[in-house]
């Protein structure tokens, strides 16, 4: 049987899921629902980006919002000052974020485990405090803790702003698939195996000739680049940026929690974690957040504790098990239908 035949469940089930994601906005038109889906993809995108360093290479960074911050501030400042479209500013921000990842990574990667995690928090907090207390850089206002509004241009594809949710939906969905593709390519490459070796046994990897520092920095640069683009997307979606949110420690922790709950170092874990956590946290935020700010964080924390206790490798393995079970059921059905045809 042809492996890529459309009649094989191994092809049509995942393809069907992807098609459903693309069709959703045509069927469900509620902006609230679409916004929720956008947030799910956004968190999944950030977590996929984080996963390159935190998952594959095993370097748990608790300061990844430094990169969303750089991305968001760079594209927004270029837009305000030079009128440059965020579509280009986005890449400027991403390059700066990658550069920052290398600069921060260079000293931090020399540290191990808890020390590494603490140093990333240190950088993030220092960076946020500096931005919060800086009103202008070389005469360019960045307005400190007050935050900046992205100038409105109405419904404009050129300036990356839309009145409807649908365009944002497709942009972040495609971004998520690109991030997934990048992590997939890394996981199948020599570089990906280097990262895995570093995660599992640093000394062994080094003695086998893996260039530890170079591999870690490369992973950090790719991760920072993607995360920076995520920052620009957030700025264009909300049309407002401030240090407390876009460079905040909470967002940085949320990314890590989604990764851990989904399955750190797995391909689909970040997406699964996001699909599980973001709706729960958004619903609690919407229904209880008005009166009880921070309730969704209780949910985040509690779920993390439960997962750490009972599913230390995240939900990825369990979900994949169910998925393969469904696929096998469907295949068996299919092979019954094709009586007499040898399926293998």
């Amino acid at each position, binding site marked *: 049987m042809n492996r890529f035949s459309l009649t094989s469940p191994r092809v049509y089930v995942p393809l069907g899921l992807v098609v459903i994601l693309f069709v959703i906005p045509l069927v469900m038109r509620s902006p609230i629902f679409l916004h929720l889906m956008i947030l799910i993809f956004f968190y999944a995108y950030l977590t996929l980006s984080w996963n390159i360093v935190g998952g594959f290479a095993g370097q*748990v960074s608790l300061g990844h919002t430094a990169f969303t911050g750089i991305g968001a501030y760079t594209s927004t400042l270029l837009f305000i000052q030079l009128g440059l479209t965020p579509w280009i500013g986005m890449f400027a921000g991403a390059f700066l974020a990658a550069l920052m990842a290398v600069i921060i990574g260079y*000293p931090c990667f*020399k*540290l*191990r*485990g*808890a*020390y590494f*995690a*603490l*140093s990333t*928090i*240190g*950088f993030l*907090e*220092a960076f946020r*405090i*500096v931005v*919060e*207390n800086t009103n202008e850089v070389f005469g360019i206002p960045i307005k400190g803790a007050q935050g900046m509004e992205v100038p409105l241009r109405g419904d404009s594809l050129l300036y990356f702003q839309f009145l409807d949710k649908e365009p944002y939906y497709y942009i972040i969905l495609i971004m998520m698939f690109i991030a997934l593709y990048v992590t997939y390519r890394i996981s199948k490459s020599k570089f990906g195996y280097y990262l895995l070796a570093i995660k599992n046994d640093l000394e062994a990897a080094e003695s086998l000739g893996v260039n530890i520092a170079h591999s870690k920095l490369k992973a950090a640069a790719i991760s920072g680049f993607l995360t920076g683009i995520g920052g620009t997307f957030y700025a264009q979606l909300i049309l407002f940026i401030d240090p407390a949110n876009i460079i905040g420690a909470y967002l940085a*922790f949320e990314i*890590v*929690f989604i990764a*851990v709950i989904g399955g750190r170092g797995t391909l689909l874990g970040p997406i699964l974690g996001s699909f599980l956590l973001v709706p729960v946290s958004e619903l609690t935020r919407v229904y209880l957040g008005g009166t*009880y*700010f*921070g*309730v969704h*964080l*209780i949910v*985040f*924390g*509690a*779920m*993390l*504790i439960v997962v*750490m*206790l009972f599913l*230390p490798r995240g939900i990825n393995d369990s979900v994949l098990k169910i998925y393969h079970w469904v696929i096998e059921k469907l295949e068996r059905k299919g092979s019954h239908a094709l009586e007499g045809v040898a399926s293998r």
Partner: protein
Amino acid sequence: MEMLLQAIINGILMGSVYGLTALGLTLIFGVMKVINFAHGSCLMVGMFASYWFVTLTGIDPYLALIVVVPFCFAFGYLIQDTLISPVFKREKGVREPFGVLLLTSGLWLVLDNLALLLFGANFRSIKTPYSSLSYQIGDIIINGPRLYAFIGTIAGAYLFHLFLKKTVMGQAIRATGQDRDVAGLMGVNVYRIYSVAFGIGIAITGFVGGLLTPFYYVHPTVGYVFDIKAFVIVVLGGLGSIPGALLGGIIIGLIESVVAQFLTATWTAAITYAIFLAVLFLKPEGILGLKGEW
């Protein structure tokens, strides 16, 4: 000149409180090799326990310590026993137990936001007859409760030191910190020791909380400030070192109050981070070079 002297004294007084908080963190790290990300949140729990006990019974805040400290010990013991231990056992062979780090950061979010949910974001404080009491020596004014807190932290740290050196339990804790496998072979119930050590670490934050409430505002995110400072302090003094924690605390307290004479409070915080990162990168074993005595 008087301003500077005043700042130095205030820095030492407050720094000793930071130091004792960090002592709990360094104890837990020294014994278990785990960084408790929920440490500041546990301090917040201690402060609220003290606040509510004092407000509801009208008892003197320092007398309330008799209840607050055992309460915090039980709280810490239970957290270790029910939540951290299972994850810890699973990660036994792992050199850097990340599961525990993540678990405690989950706990941090839950505790802080639960407090926000239950008590609201208001800043609360206890009014005592001596809240505004102060002593004057020349031109220097020393706030009463801050001075008592300083005396309390020094006494607390000394008691803790005696406990570690003189009692059987203290010896068992030190033995476990030095080599848990050998300690286990010598008949020490290692997981019970972990629970006791964690309990004591949290009891210390409860003690600090009780000393803080007469002059420091209680609110749900109060822990975050102390959390980050405690990390900075233990790294500064050397993870696992008891005198290092106290000295590190006083150094941070001094930087905070002396630098604040020249710069805004937020820039002072940025400088604290800069020092923190510099120590991490240049001398991760701590500037004081004090070895953890485990």
